[in-house]
């Protein structure tokens, strides 16, 4: 009996010491990690709108400066109108505008959706015509490395560039991921709405397709405003989307 007691005592002490160490590491390193995550997020927004050169290393300050110069974040309501400062009590959909000389060149929609093993976080950038994709990035996911994990790779993401979220008549259809063979069988008008999927990652592709459709239809009112050229200028006096600038 005393042997068992000793084992239990030892196990409890070990668990206690280990958890103390982990707590210390977690809380001590948290500020650094937060900073990295923040910069990485901004980097992905910049990458989605095509501002970053591939293979070029950027410093943290470089990313922050470039972000502050080019990107403005605001909120839109359910009708796609940009919300005023203080309106709506922090509700509404966040949207990032890429502006150059006061004109909106592209807008970025945050993608937070379900993957096969966990959440997928990324950004989809659309040109100011409201229908052409200018870039797609993923900055956080739990998909299997080498299979679904390939969604974070350049070769997959670059397929999105130039694709449309509307059909030839201008109706919203979203953008989907399909097997290359299935895409080859489609007619030319349909191909523009699909990107090549990853072999061995059919389910990840399916979840991402469903997520993109859901998110893009939520943002459809904004996209319609872009298509009718109502959003070519950055609206003044609008509320920031609550992120730390």
């Amino acid at each position, binding site marked *: 009996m005393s042997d068992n007691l000793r*084992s239990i005592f030892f196990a409890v002490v070990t668990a206690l010491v280990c958890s103390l160490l982990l707590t210390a590491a977690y809380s001590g390193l948290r500020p650094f990690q937060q900073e990295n995550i923040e910069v*990485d997020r901004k980097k992905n927004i910049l990458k989605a709108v095509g501002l970053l050169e591939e293979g070029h290393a950027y410093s943290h300050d470089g990313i922050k400066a470039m972000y502050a110069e080019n990107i403005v974040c605001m909120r839109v309501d359910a009708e796609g109108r940009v919300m005023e400062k203080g309106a709506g009590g922090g509700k509404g959909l966040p949207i990032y505008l890429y502006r150059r000389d006061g004109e909106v060149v592209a807008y970025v929609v945050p993608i937070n959706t379900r993957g096969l093993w966990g959440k997928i976080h990324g950004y989809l950038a659309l040109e100011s015509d409201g229908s052409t994709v200018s870039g797609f990035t993923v900055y956080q996911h739990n998909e299997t490395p080498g299979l679904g994990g390939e969604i974070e790779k350049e070769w997959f993401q670059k397929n999105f560039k130039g694709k449309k979220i509307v059909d030839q008549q201008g109706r919203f259809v979203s953008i989907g991921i399909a097997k290359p063979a299935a895409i080859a069988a489609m007619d030319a008008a349909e191909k523009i709405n699909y990107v090549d999927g990853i072999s061995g990652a059919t389910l990840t592709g399916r979840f991402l397709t469903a997520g993109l459709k859901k998110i893009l239809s939520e943002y459809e009112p904004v996209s319609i405003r872009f298509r009718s050229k109502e959003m070519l200028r950055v609206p003044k006096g609008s509320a920031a989307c609550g992120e730390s600038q």
Partner: protein
Amino acid sequence: MKLTQTKHFKTFSEPLIQNNPISMQMLGICSALAVTVQMKTAVVMGLSLTFVLAFSNLTISIMRRVIPRNIRMIVELSVIATLVIIADQVLRAFFYDISKQLSVFVGLIITNCIVMGRAETFALGNPPGLSFLDGLGNGAGYGSVLVSVALIRETLGAGKFLGVAIVPELVYRAGYENMGFMQLAPAAFIIIGLLVWLQKTLSKE
């Protein structure tokens, strides 16, 4: 007695070549396939494993007389897991890009047979100093194989060394192409096989 004859030196140096955890004991192959596409990830993975291994050996060796036999593996595992999570958190704080590339593989050090194997076979029966050196030696042995494989894969597969292009543009224009196969995991499998063959042939003489 010369330094190379001491027990401490032998403990450190044996796992480097003669008793290398990957090429002789065939442990830790899985991560060696996954993280050797680039030198940078291979070096960081080697260092992380060395850190975990050295300190898990040290801790377990210090506690070896007080750990109750019946729960010793659970205790070993908690020590290892704690160290791995700390290593992972440090990487996330200071080497974010590399830690993203290594993705799950740092976390998977917990299941790396080298760590548990050294704790069971060495740290439980040897004093802390020796155990620490054994951990360093095995970590360095693992790391050196990783780095050699990554050197071959990055040079042939991407024409780069530590991310810097080393194959001149001229050669590409003359018709040279990067070997795409080297970017895939099976390439590491073949390279490790060749390394083992080379080492076994050399050590026979």
